[in-house]
């Protein structure tokens, strides 16, 4: 498994206290994507759809059961299953180096 970690460099939050995944982000709250913890080809597929490190993602409505959920990204809306969203790691919003 290859970790796609583009543009993360020094800003990358370690898998520690601050790191949240996209699946944990509440509806309507904006998050900044840090990296895609997915195999290279899948990460590329998602990046083509706008899930790019550094981009803002806002969770919108979900299916009645809560999964899959629609994400607003890059001017369009794309639904992902929780299993995929939980591999997209967000930048820690409390981390001052991002803000």
């Amino acid at each position, binding site marked *: 498994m290859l970790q796609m970690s583009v*543009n993360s460099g020094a800003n990358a939050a370690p898998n520690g206290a601050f790191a949240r995944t996209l699946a944990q982000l509440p509806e309507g709250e904006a998050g900044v994507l840090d990296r895609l913890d997915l195999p290279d*080809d899948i990460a590329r597929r998602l*990046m083509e759809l706008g899930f790019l490190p550094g981009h803002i993602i806002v969770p919108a409505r979900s299916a009645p059961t809560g999964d899959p959920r629609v994400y607003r990204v890059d*001017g369009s809306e*794309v*639904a992902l299953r929780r299993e995929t969203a939980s591999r997209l790691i967000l930048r820690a919003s409390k981390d001052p180096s991002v803000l």
Partner: protein
Amino acid sequence: MSECHDCAGCAVAVAPPPLHNGARTHVVAIIGPPNSGKSTLFNRLTGLRQKVANFPGVTVEQRVGKAKMNKAKTPHHSEVVLVDLPGVYSLSPRSEDEQVTRDVLAGNMAGIPKPDALLLILDCTNLGRHLVLAAPILSLKLPTLVILNMADDLKNRGGYVDTAELASELGSPVALISAAKGQGVEKVFQFMEGTSAGTTSLAPPRVELPILQDIPRCRQWAHDVGTGAAYRAPAPPIWTRRLDSVFLHPIAGPLIFLMVVAGVFQTIFKGAKPLMDGLQALIQTSGQGIEHLLPPSIFRSLLVDGIWSGVGAVIVFLPQILLLFLFIGILEDSGYLARAALIADRTMAKFGLQGKSFIPLISAYACAVPAIMATRTIENKRDRLATILIAPFMTCSARLPVYTLIIAAFIADRPLLGHFFGMQAGALLGLYILGFVAAIATARLLKSSILKSERVPFVLEMPPYRWPTLRSLGLRLIDRSKVFLRRAGTVILLVIVVLWVLENLPLKNGQPPEIGDSFAGMIGHAVEPAIKPLGFNWKIGIGLVSSIAAREVIVGTLGTIYHKEGTSESEGLRQALRSDLTPGGAVALLVFFAFAMQCMSTIAVVRRETGGWKWPAVQFAYMTFLAYICALITNEVVRSGIFT
């Protein structure tokens, strides 16, 4: 004077046109990301002059059409051949779609000449994402028109782009159009007039065209180019968000979903019934009319009893299929299909499938043929294949006459749950459940074995809601009925003729033989040892052979064999079956029909949709094997008397 004075920045050469061989066709390929309106534009340009097939050897759909050109402006080419390529985000060959696109663009696709010009269609409400594709496409150095589609959306939602500036940045003409409304489509024709006359030349792009594997850098490039053309992204689609707050509401959403599904179901069964009955009556009366016109002969028998009634048995399904495609068309074009897929996804995921498999599988309760054609909305190839392979297990309407006949003949209608739900209704429901269970069990089996390795996650783009246009719905209906009638019709015609020959030859004293002495009877006798363990005799054997044309044909064949009226309501036929079949054999026959792929039309359409004989062969072998084993077990269990 420019040929395309309307399209901004069109580079026109004054140089004499290159030598054209008059007979050589001018080929233009349409390329663009998914949901950019590619197919809408293709339909606009070609209308009814299009053909849908598969690229050789792959499951990727190939749509080729002809656009009629103005003869005065394009003396060498009165028509331009248009090729609609699959939707791709990039040209890196990671999926079958991308490989096909690359092959066509490089001229390496068998049967399709290298395109002379390209139409690159992008959604201008989402230019930041879509413009990425421009770099690798423009680097091909083919005359390319960059089409910014959804111009109406961009304007209504307050977006802007300077097309002249974008054209000079990219070195290619840019046209702002709305393919759905037909606005600006004349610019596309003008571009094609220019390229087919050879008067379009390439201008060097002002910006660098990077071919990068690094997506963030490609995006940055697209962003910079957009900024250079004063691109302002449109405001979020307010109506789409309002509608989603209803259609994806935690309570209202599923209720609306169920109503839509119930509506589809109701329409394809109840709504289509009068039309189907009318068509049936028409076929019967016209058949009788022909019978009266011709003198009695073996030829008349072939024409009326064979071809007319056989092909009629298939055409009867056309109203159902058209209504189904009308529904699916409205759902897809309006954008609701994506929402329905989102709601159904969790349930379908339990069986290893995904939300987009739901509507096709529901359709399969009417007929597997349109259901399999409807799987084209599933982009993921493996999910699509899995859906195609399990669809024929759903209880289609052609099984009903067989079920009705056997159940009425062998199962006493004792009350099971009160007076309204008797044993017969229970048996019918049981058969529906049996087919459904076989379908999901097969889906799980497929997704944990041969179709497992797919690692592409479930990704579902939610397009904005749009009004479906009559034009696009109409074109789709015409296309689908053509496919159904041609593929199903021709195959069925062939099978019907072969079956008629088998049932009416060899001649005895110049007369057709008793069916037991015909070739079909010989086949029935020959297969009897193999089907005896299932509780079937040679007569059922003939019925099974004939039902390959279409499942319900067995009812008519059994009528012929027993010299009774060949309908599922025929009391005489029920009596004859009761005295000739064991209860074990009868229940086994029901189970056999629940599982077996006794349908030439389905086989033909699977071959078409999967691009070869491999999958229909696998599917036929698997379903027949399953049907045989389960019928064998059923017969043994019923014979052993556990249930009596």
